[in-house]
Every structure is written in C-alpha cells, then in structure tokens.
C-alpha cells in the first residue's frame, strides 16, 4: 500500500460505495475504497442477487409442479438443497469478482480492512493486525446496514435465522415462521413455500407489504393464502423458546391473546439497522439517530468532508437508492454543475415474491393525504392476452394521477414479471410525463406492458380491453 493520500475515500464497497468510487474515478478524483468483508456488499453477496438465484429455483419448481397445465408431463420433481444453495453462492461469487475487476479497471485503490475515522480528513485501516493511516479531502460512509434484532428476538443462526442464514439452509424446514412481511420477509416466505415448507407470516401492521399501496397488500395476502401460507396480521412475537430441533414462538394477536406456534425454523425480517459502530462517528461529531447516520439530501453529514450514502443514511434500504445517492454525493464533491438532489418519489421498489410486486411514487392513500385530487386507473392481468398465454392471469397494475395536472403520482403493480415493467413508469416520472404522453405511447403487442397503457387509459375511463 504505497499511496496514503487521496481525494476521496469510500468506506464500504456495497452498491452505494463501489458505484460512488467508480463515478469518482470517472470524474478524475484519486479514489480509494475500503471494504472489510466482500466487494459488492450485502446486495450481491448476501442480498438482492443470491436471493434472486434461490427464487429462480423455487419459481422453476413451481412451473414443474404445474407442468400438466401446460400439457407437459414431469415425473417426480425433486431437489438437492445443497446444489440449490451452491448455485446461489456461485452467482454471488461471479459478481463479486466482477466488482473487483470494475474497480481495478477504473483505477480505484481497493483496500481490504476495517476503517475508522481519525480526525479531519484522516482514517485508519486495520488489516491483518496492522494499522495504516490514510488521508483524503472527502470521506464517504457507505457501510450499509444489517438485519435488526430485538432483545427478545435474536437470531442464533441455527433455528432462528436472519436473511443471511436463510440463504444457506442445510436442511429444508418442514415448517417456517417468518416474522415481518416486508420485501425480505415475503421473498423468503415465497421461496420456502414453493419449495414445500409450511409457512406462517406474522406482521405487526394490519397488512402485508405495509409500504405498498393498500390494494396491492390486500391482493398479495389473498395470493399468499391461496398458496397455503398462513398470515397473521396485527400480531407480534413476544418471546421465543428454542429447543434442540424446534422453536416455539409466543404470539400476541390482535385481540391481545397470546398463542403458541412451534416451527422448525424462524426467520427474523423485522427491519434493518445501520452499520454505525466502530467507525469513530461519535468522536468525529457525526450525528446518529435511531441506528442511522443523519445526512441531508446531498449526503452531507454536517461534518465538513464526511458524507453518508445508502442504507447507513436511512430508508428506503434499496441498492439502487444507495448507488444513486453515491453518484449524487460524488458529483457534488467534484463540483459538477446543475445537480439535483434525489427525489424519493422517483425510487422504484421491487419485491420478488410470487406474485412479484413493484411500485414507484405515491400510493393512492399517500397521494390523497398529500392533498392531491386523484384519478386512479387499474387494469387486471386477466384482461391481457400475454398474461393469459403465460398462464399468469392474476395481478393488476394501478396508476395514480393528479387530476388537475395529469402528473403521474404513483404506479403499483402485482403479478408476473412486474419488477421488469416498473422502469417504464420510473422513466415516465423522471421525464415528468402526463397522462397524455403515456396515452400516446405505443406499447407493443403482445406484452405484459400493454397493461401499463390500459391502466393509464382506465384512469381516464378509456381502457379498451376491460
């Protein structure tokens, strides 16, 4: 490690950090990135990507289980869990190597070790028992976040899992309790249910996927229940008793009564907390609130030269939000002109359960609460030829417009492949289109995307196929 002075040091090489570092290098900043565990962060090692690999397996299994519907005969669908997990790890490994290559290609200095702030413009890196001091004009904190645990709800890695354990099961549990019905919770619920486990979801709020539109939540619940999941709303886990091969959860229901449920395994998906420890934040004067670094819309922490982006600076905890924040912060540091801070209503969200869920912007309720008079369109999958041909007739696309200006305030989708569709509305929102341009856009036939068109038309009572 010959170089010790940089323009910018990024701490954490997840999707926020490594994207920020590459952008900084593009802008001519001498950049270093420090990572304590694995390049690519949680996203591609223990999050987004390996779970998608697992969900692909359970999706194919679901198709095979229903092959007869498509005129195919398949005898005995089975699986080798070790191979399923191995495939997921291989995918993660491949991308991890890819990030390493990208950083190298962009001439970003990559340092493996644990970083700590040490006074203005200085940090120390501990690696292999040695400590090195580095200097930089600007430092970006991008250390990410981890699964939240509660004093009475702690993962042991054996019977009680976080997402990380749930990704590398050694045996397929017969019964599984998922605590929390956010994106992480329902994705694992979907995977394990399709692989054959009895799944129960417990959610504290009165609906599943509480950040989504209420119609989406209601529809998702119905679909999950149809697949045989049990869903308990308005409930929380008070206490758990772990035995040698099973765990008993004491569940306080909506009515205040406590019931017990004994399962093979349990997944905690009750939120995220920022990795704010051992960074020397307090000494540096960086403010931390409820597990997250406080930063403004540009990522500034209030301490000169220290920036924070991604999960560590708060929700939504999404890789693409972290990447975008990273780019904005770096461009601000480099003095790029004409910058706009991130607009949170332009961040799409995707959940890869079966059915998939995707959304961008305000829900109908949020739009009304924000004082908009709205026009709402909704189009069901059953009205779409491609959806029927795919054998996926369940789901819908909902759009919310401001009645006066025609601004697309939000879009909400549930059903097959919607995570690949939402970008269309994200582009529309970024370009500030109104309903008129969306109506005039020609959507190709036969595609699922036609439903995006029809939903817009429906908001103005012009849907053709429903």
């Amino acid at each position, binding site marked *: 490690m010959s170089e010790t002075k940089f323009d910018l040091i990024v701490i954490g090489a997840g999707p926020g950090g490594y994207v920020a570092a590459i952008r900084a290098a593009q802008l001519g900043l001498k950049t270093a990135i420090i990572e304590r565990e694995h390049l690519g962060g949680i996203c591609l090692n223990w999050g987004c990507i390996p779970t998608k690999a697992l969900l692909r397996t359970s999706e194919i299994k679901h198709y095979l289980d229903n092959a007869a519907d498509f005129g195919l005969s398949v005898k005995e669908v089975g699986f080798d869990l070790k191979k399923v997990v191995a495939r997921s790890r291989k995918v993660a490994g491949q991308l991890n190597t890819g990030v390493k290559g990208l950083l190298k290609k962009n001439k970003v200095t990559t340092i493996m070790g644990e970083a700590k702030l040490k006074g203005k413009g200085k940090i120390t890196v501990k690696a292999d028992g040695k400590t090195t001091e580095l200097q930089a004009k600007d430092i970006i904190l991008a250390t990410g976040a981890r699964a939240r645990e509660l004093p009475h709800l702690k993962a042991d890695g054996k019977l009680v899992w976080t997402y990380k354990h749930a990704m590398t099961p050694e045996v397929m549990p017969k019964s599984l309790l998922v605590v929390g019905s956010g994106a992480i919770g329902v994705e694992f619920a979907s995977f394990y249910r399709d692989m054959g486990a009895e799944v129960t979801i417990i959610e504290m709020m009165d609906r599943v996927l509480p950040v989504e539109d209420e119609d989406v939540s209601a529809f998702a619940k119905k679909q999950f229940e149809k697949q045989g999941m049990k869903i308990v709303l308005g409930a929380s886990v008070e206490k758990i008793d772990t035995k040698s091969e099973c765990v008993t959860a004491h569940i306080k229901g909506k009515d205040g009564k406590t019931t017990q449920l004994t399962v093979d395994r349990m997944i905690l998906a009750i939120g995220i907390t920022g990795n704010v420890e051992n960074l020397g934040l307090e000494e540096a004067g960086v403010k931390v609130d409820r597990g997250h670094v406080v930063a403004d819309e540009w990522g500034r922490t209030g301490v000169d030269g220290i920036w924070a982006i991604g999960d560590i600076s708060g929700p939504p905890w999404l890789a693409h939000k972290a990447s975008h924040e990273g780019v904005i912060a770096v461009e601000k540091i480099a003095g790029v002109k004409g910058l706009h801070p991130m607009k949170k209503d332009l961040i799409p969200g995707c959940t890869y359960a079966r059915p998939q869920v995707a959304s961008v912007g305000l829900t109908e309720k949020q739009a009304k609460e924000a004082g908009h*008079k709205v026009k709402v369109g909704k189009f069901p999958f059953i009205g779409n030829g491609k959806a029927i041909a795919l054998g996926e007739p369940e789901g819908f696309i909902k759009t919310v417009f401001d009645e006066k200006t025609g601004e697309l305030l939000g879009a909400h989708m549930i059903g097959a492949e919607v995570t690949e569709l939402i970008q269309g509305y994200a582009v529309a929102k970024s370009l500030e289109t109104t309903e008129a341009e969306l109506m005039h856009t020609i959507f190709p036939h036969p595609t699922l995307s036609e439903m995006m068109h029809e939903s817009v038309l429906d908001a103005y*009572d012009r849907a053709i196929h429903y």
Partner: protein
Amino acid sequence: MPIKILMPALSPTMETGTLAKWLVKEGDEVSSGDIIAEIETDKATMEVESVDEGRVGKIVVAEGTEDVPVNDVIALLLEDGEDESALEGAGGDASDGSAQKASESEAPVKQPEASDSKATDAKAPAAPVSDDGGRVFASPLARRMAQQLGLDLAAIKGSGPKGRIVKADIEAAKDGKAAPATADKAASQDKAVPSAPAPAGVDVPGFEPPADVPYDEVKLSGMRKIIAKRMTQSKSHVPHFYLTIDVELEKLMAQRKALNTRLEGEGVKISVNDFIIRASALALKKVPQANAMFAGDKAYLFKRQDISVAVAVDGGLVTPVVRDAGSKGLAQISGEMKELATKARDGKLMPEDYQGGTFSISNLGMFGIREFGAVINPPQGAILAVGAGEKRAVVDGDAVAIKLVMTVTLAVDHRVLDGAFGAEFLKAFKGYIEDPMTMLL
C-alpha cells in the same frame, strides 16, 4: 338514484368556473329547459339549463363558489317518487372516487373527450419560442402546469438537464422566485436592459396596503384576473410601437346623417364607431400585412377581417368580434355590434362571440379622450385606439380652419409588422374615413 347536475363546460377550453347564482332553491320543482343557475367564466356569464326534470334535492356547490371544476356535481335532482333519503351517498364529494366515476359517466361532456381536448390544448402551446427564436425545452408536466397557470415558458429558466424546464421551475415561477430567462443575457451583455418581470406578475402575492390609508378591498373577478394576466403578458412580451394620425370627420358626419335619415324607418342607426369598424376592415383588406399574427418562426396574414371591438362592461371590458367585417355593410355591422354590445353588458356573451378576432379597436372618444395608446390583445398583431372627434384649429393651405378631427393611434407588434405597413394601413384607413363614399363601394 338522484340525478347529478354537473358543472357544464361552456367552452372547449373551460376547466373551472364560478357558480355565480342559483335561480332555484332546494325543494323547487324544475322541468327540462328551466334555467337553474348562472355560471361565470373569465369572460361571460352563462345560464345553465336543466336537462332533466325533478325536484332540487340538494345544492352541492354554494352560490358564489369560485373555480368549480368542470363536471363536478353542483346539485342533485330527485326524480319522481324519490325522497331526501336517496341523497345519501349520491355523491357530490368530488374526492370520493366512486361518485366521481359515476358522475363522469353521466356527464354531458364525456370525460374521454374532455381529456382529449385537454391533451390537444396542452399541445397547442407546445412550441413556445425563446427570445432568440429557439425551441423551448420543457417537460410535458411543466408545459401543462404553465398553461394552467398562464405562465409563458419562454420567460422561465429551466433547471433540468440542458436547461430543460421542469415542474420545480414552474413552481418557482408561480411563487415569483424564478429568474427570468432573459436576465442572464441582459447581464452578460452588460446593458441596462430591464429584465422581463416574472411572467407570473399577476400571480405575485399582492402588496400590503399602506398602514394609514383607508381602503376598500375589492376581490378580483375572473374577467379582471384574465385582463391582468393577458395585458401583463402583452406588455412584457410583445414589443409595441405606436403610429398616430389625424383624420377629418366632416364628410363622414354628413354621410352618416344622410344614411340615418334614410334608414330611420328601418330602425337602423349607424354610429361613428360602425364606420370605424368598416373602415378598419377595408384598410386591412387593402394592407393584409397589418392583419397579422406572430407565431414564432412564422407569421399568419389573415384573409378575413374579424374585428374585436372593446366594450366596457361592469368590472372590466370584453371584446366581442364582428366576423368578416370586410364583407359586411354598415347596416349589418351596426346591427351586429348593437346585439354584441347588449349581450356584453348583460354578461351573456357566448364564447364564440368573443373568441378569435384578428384585429382590435378600442374607442374612448365618448369620454372625450383625445388620443391614447392601447395594449395589443395577443395573439393579435395590432390594435387601433380611437380618440374623440372634436373641432380643432387646423392649418388648411396657408389658413387656419376649424375642422372636425379625430386622432387614432395604431399599436403594432413589431415582431410581425413594421412601421411602413402600419403607416400604409393608417393611410388607407384615413382615406376611407375622410371619403366615406369609397367605403360604400
């Protein structure tokens, strides 16, 4: 189900209106064709007829409510055999999605068409032109909002990629915070060019009255707001210049007297203004360059002379249009003008009565005004301001003579019309007025 009475669209572009007056009250029986309310738009008051019959169950929108969106439920009509209990859940709450849907499907103007016309409207001003004649880049939402707020995109500086105007810029302009697009240039050229006022000039929050001066606060009518907006736009964006000429009226007065005597039995009385309308139309026919409209990278030279005539009414002025005045005789112009003026004063002008027009006349002669410069009524290219006919000492040859003279001033949009054509128009106009026989040809 009670019948929903909806806010009607009085013109294709109308989006909101003021519910000026209810002519019925709850409990009244109405039959089809009865006039039940008066609606005021920016230019006119119109009557709303009931299309159905029944008993007025509920008045949903109170008299005097401003900015009622088109197609909102304004009242509920009970059909035969229905009582008040039927009113529950019958809608009237515009934020209620289901009621909204139902009302739209019954709306006389179907929503799809309405939104179509909106879409077209949004397109119409879609190619505003910047000061230097280039295309103005703006997001569709920004265009729509600017149109709704009456902001001129060319005057707004964009903060989006490559200077594109985005929603945030419109919101800033609305609040009067935006830097006008011209400001930068003015500064860089280091000239004392007064930067254009924020186009939202009209929407700028008002000044506080001085502390110690007693005052009445007068709420602006829709018409007043429109006048304020349009005149601000005109004076800040249309480069005006003025041409003044004196015309002698003796022959015209004699001619008028003769004509009116002859027409007495037919109830026709031709005014000086009718002569002015006809003379203007004929002069425009002769000099079509003065019958022009500026449209960015092109100009339109009109082949028909639709003359907008300013008529003072309570609370402002309107400009009903005498269509194709160049092909109409004095008697016809006189008749039409009389009807339009009456309608205008009664607030009964229909949109087709005042929309369009290719040239304007404003006459303040009756108030003894000698001469004045008028503000062009965009998108028209010129307006003729007419002063009083009065006896003046005029040098005729080498002697001073007393003559009946009137001064007119032509205000011209310099982007589309130059001094020479303006002068030619005035010469033709003067010719017709001073030799009115030629007007009869």
